[in-house]
């Protein structure tokens, strides 16, 4: 796993927000801007979707992204491809090493399958996504939710074809940074999952930063 640091200075960021666990965030990152997600306390899952800001029908495609790079894991150099085969984002720095895009987002209904029926009443990423879309007045809804990226999540696949949820490889202060190749709407749920040991049953905040293209 390649660890590549960024030379961007956080003091020069044009946008800087701490997003608590259990909250959603929908924000445009303009073409040429750099976007960083910083894992403040370690092993926090950041469920993330990307859309062409001018046409939400064109969105992040997990399967096209992994097939075209012939690798399951996202890291420096990964081009996040759209359903139309265009590059939405390129990962330019990564101090975690790799990120998952097979595990999807937690939801009330999938929690009732994975854990027990009563877990469906707990807060979930899909609830956060739907809450953000329900308030966005942008014409988007559940139909626009698809397989997402889980930044900082470690979900190894074995050669025998098993999916495993391994201990996290992220830690406090690790980050991933990407450059927008077109104007992109980024939808995040900072995961509130309390049933999975991968975050030590303790969802924590992340810091989101954007640098302007001319500003670094």
């Amino acid at each position, binding site marked *: 796993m390649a660890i590549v640091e960024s030379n961007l200075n956080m003091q020069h960021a044009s946008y800087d927000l701490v997003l608590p666990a259990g909250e959603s965030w929908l924000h445009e990152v303009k073409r040429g801007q750099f976007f960083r997600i910083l894992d403040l306390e370690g092993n926090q899952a950041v469920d993330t979707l990307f859309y062409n800001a001018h046409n939400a029908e064109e969105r992040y495609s997990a399967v096209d992204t992994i097939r075209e790079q*012939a690798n399951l894991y996202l890291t420096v150099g990964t081009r996040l491809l759209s359903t139309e085969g265009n590059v939405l984002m390129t990962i330019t720095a990564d101090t975690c090493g790799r990120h998952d895009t*097979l595990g999807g987002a937690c939801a009330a*209904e999938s929690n009732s*399958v994975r854990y027990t029926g009563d877990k469906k009443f707990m807060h979930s990423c899909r609830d956060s996504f739907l809450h953000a879309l329900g308030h966005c007045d942008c014409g988007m809804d559940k139909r626009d*939710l*698809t397989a997402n990226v889980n930044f900082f999540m470690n979900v190894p696949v074995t050669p025998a074809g*098993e*999916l495993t949820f391994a201990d996290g490889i992220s830690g406090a202060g690790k980050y991933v940074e990407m450059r927008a190749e077109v104007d992109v709407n980024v939808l995040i749920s900072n995961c509130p999952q309390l049933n999975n040991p991968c975050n030590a049953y303790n969802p924590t905040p992340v810091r989101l930063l954007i640098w302007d293209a001319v500003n670094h």
Partner: protein
Amino acid sequence: MHQLSRQNQLWEETIPGAAHWSFQMRRGSALRLTDIEGGANLSVLFYNMEEKLERYNMPDTLKAQHTAHLTKGFVCYSDMGRVLASVIEDSCGWHDTLCGMSNAALVEAKYGKADYQQQRNAMHRNARDSMLIELGKWGMGKRDIVPNVNFFSKVSADEAGGLHYQPGHSKAGAYVELRFEMNVLVVLSACQHPLDPATQYSPKPVHLQAWHCGTADADDYCRNFRSENVRGFYNTELLFR
């Protein structure tokens, strides 16, 4: 392989290589897919017929069953924690759901351009456009295309995550049988797998046989394959009480 009799068979049909089609399968019916010549690929998406916003969910299917491939015992989950279809028999051992489907640019880059004007119905087709055509018949479109299943294709990952397509995985006569646990819209394309290294455009036909099989009983193999599936079947059956 389940024995089919004249009494319980519903219909059968051969999907030519690269063709696309869509149809409903009712709860309690089953579908056998047979790779007639060997080397077929069938890209498939599933939707709840009554509420097509509920659809096959690759991540939920994988994480509920701790798997990165499909074979006998595994089921296809919707995004609503319900079982759309169960894999009740499989002579193939591995079906891909990680690699998506072919598209126009990919097919032209691999096999060259062959349009209707030159080739009539031997024109080159791709799975994404095929899916869009079929989905259009049901009032659906691009927003409804999500990660799909590629029956008969095997793509494994090494320790570093590198993807490896296995040529020759599906032999002539290989089959997989699906039982539908809900009323399901099946949308399919028999285009080649996007990682098929064959240099020739050579999509293969797939034979379909549908029959009445009845619903899963208490000791059903797929229901009891994992504790998650017991809960998934319970969620599904609530729809029909």
